[in-house]
């Protein structure tokens, strides 16, 4: 038997799960898609005393439009469902662009949006996208609910604002109004691997093509995904021409202070982080380069 001994609960309601979490706290682990937790348990890198399986709770898996025009996504929504959702493509195409980069389709069949956020691997795609989209998270405990902004959620390597007694229940993606463009780029050794480094960008353009707001996030280049403030400020008010894009890439490389590991050196991540931003900006400007837009035209 691979995992160490544990007690197993499969609550059928959210309240029951929150009660168990309140009771066991630090000794318990939530089991969502299992695509990160199970490998760690099989290798005995984690040995929870209690496993709380939330797969049988109704009402944690949904993709619903919100009254304010945004989107609410249940924490247990499988990554594969997001990948296939027309609603996500319409409201938050950045997410549709990023999801296919997660592992392989068999992993996405099971892996959940909430699991990816709670696990918070520094090279993971969903946390980077949520930070770029200015997403909010609903966290629940038996004491009540609170809402945390993405910028306050990711604290450090595999560490989030979630307390041991809290369950991530929903993510809320605000609506974007006007002419927004999207870009997502990452580099990895083999298809499906975690990114060595990557970038997500959103550009809000006026009708003359001047940038009203730029959002730039890098991931895999620090303990958490990071918004690149200097480059964002530099681009707003510009026409995001080739020189602007190169300067933004330079500002990003300057701002990064990544680590070296067996996968890549710090210098590589720093340089290529800038290149990923430049390419993501190019991709955002050339909307026709987005495969999903092509699909829509054809339909």
């Amino acid at each position, binding site marked *: *038997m*691979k*995992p*160490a*001994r*544990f*007690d*197993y*609960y*499969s609550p059928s309601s959210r309240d029951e799960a929150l009660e168990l979490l309140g009771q066991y706290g630090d000794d318990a682990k939530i*089991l969502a898609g*299992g*695509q990160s937790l*199970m*490998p760690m348990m*099989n*290798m005995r890198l984690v040995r929870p005393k209690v*496993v709380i*399986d939330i*797969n049988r709770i109704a009402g944690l898996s949904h993709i619903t439009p919100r009254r304010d025009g945004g989107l609410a996504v249940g924490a247990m929504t499988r990554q*594969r469902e997001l990948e296939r959702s027309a609603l996500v493509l319409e409201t938050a195409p950045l997410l549709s662009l990023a999801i296919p980069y997660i*592992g*392989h*389709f*068999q*992993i996405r*069949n*099971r892996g959940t949006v909430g699991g990816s956020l709670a696990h918070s691997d520094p090279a993971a795609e969903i946390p980077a996208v949520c930070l770029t989209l200015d997403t909010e998270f609903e966290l629940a405990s038996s004491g009540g609910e609170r809402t945390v902004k993405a910028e306050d959620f990711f604290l450090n390597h595999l560490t989030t604002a979630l307390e041991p007694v809290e369950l991530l229940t929903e993510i809320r993606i605000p609506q974007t109004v006007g002419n927004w463009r999207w870009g997502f780029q990452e580099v990895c050794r*083999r*298809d*499906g691997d975690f990114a060595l480094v990557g970038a997500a960008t959103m550009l809000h353009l006026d009708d003359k093509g001047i940038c009203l707001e730029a959002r730039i996030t890098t991931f895999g280049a620090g303990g958490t995904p990071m918004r690149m403030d200097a480059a964002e400020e530099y681009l707003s008010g510009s026409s995001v021409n080739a020189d602007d894009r190169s300067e933004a890439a330079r500002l990003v490389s300057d701002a990064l202070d990544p680590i070296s590991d067996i996968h890549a050196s710090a210098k590589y991540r720093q340089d290529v982080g800038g290149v990923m931003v430049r390419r993501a900006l190019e991709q955002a400007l050339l909307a026709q380069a987005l495969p999903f837009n092509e699909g829509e035209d054809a339909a």
Partner: protein
Amino acid sequence: MTTERNIRLTVNGKAYESLVPVRMTLVDFLRGELDLTGTHVGCEHGVCGACTILVDGSATRSCLMLAVQADGANLMTVEGLADGPELHPLQRAFQRNHALQCGFCTPGLLMTAYEFLRDTSNPTEEQVREGISGNICRCTGYAPIVQAILDVSQEAG
């Protein structure tokens, strides 16, 4: 204490009921308890794809699921592909194209290809390569596997 649980599930159309330790993975249950050893187990952390089976129709790593989580589920393993002595078109295409040597990766690749072809009609070679990118084969160099899957899609379409 909940260290054992009774589960009921369907595997390849047949109903089973069993008392399982909660920490037993689904792949160990299939192989060790149900004697369905067609599903292989390699890395046990989701990377190699050898243990891929269909859980309620979706290709899933059975090393990353607990057996208790399959309570009530409908599973299909490689043993469910053939119809008696009659091989499934995918199995015939693998045989014809020499898409296996040691055969270790084959069950996982067949189940992956099963879902892939169900969801993707007339795939390009590029799409097939992407589709099987989560399954590692140390023998064939992949080219015959890609060819076998393309063969079946052409037969079907």
